[in-house]
């Protein structure tokens, strides 16, 4: 069976597909590749700040 058909009929993949947030994908589709990477870098910075905030406040 060709790989593409396999993915499209794989019940596990189909189950996960139901949980995919397509609004985010549509938003990203409107961006250039470079804009997608800039967005990722912003997200990485945010994640790093959150991690560091948790380290500074051990009760968090």
């Amino acid at each position, binding site marked *: 069976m060709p790989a593409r058909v396999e993915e499209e009929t794989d019940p596990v993949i189909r189950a996960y597909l139901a949980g995919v947030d397509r609004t985010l994908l549509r938003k990203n589709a409107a961006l250039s590749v470079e804009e997608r990477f800039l967005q990722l870098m912003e*997200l990485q910075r945010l994640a790093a700040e959150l991690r560091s905030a948790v380290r500074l406040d051990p009760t968090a």
Partner: protein
Amino acid sequence: MRFIIVGGAAATAHGSARLTQDLDIVYDRSPENLARLVRALTPHQPYLRGAPPGLPFHLDVATLLRGLNFTLTSKLGDVDLFGEIAGGGGYANLEPHAISIELFGVRCLCLGLDKLIEVKRAAGRPKDLEVIAELVAIREGRA
């Protein structure tokens, strides 16, 4: 330098909304390319990720020739160098399935969406199932 972006960064290039922390590349293992790779990474102090500090690790052509896949950390961030990936093989096998993208003024190769899905499936990791589903959704959105 001859390399192909794979993994989470390639998924980002295709429009994935997932957060990835490292850059995975499949690199061409020709001696001249290994020398270019070493020249590009050395200023950023590459070191084995997760290894205790102080090991006599030195990223040079000889080191790259002795190994195949390297998980590195650097001043720029985490970089994984793959000589080969499951389900995809090496640079020469993947190049026909790569697309050209421009990033910050540099043209580079990124694994195409169909092949990216294929290698994620071949990796067979449970954590990739969600990623595969998202990539399939991206492909459906393009149809």
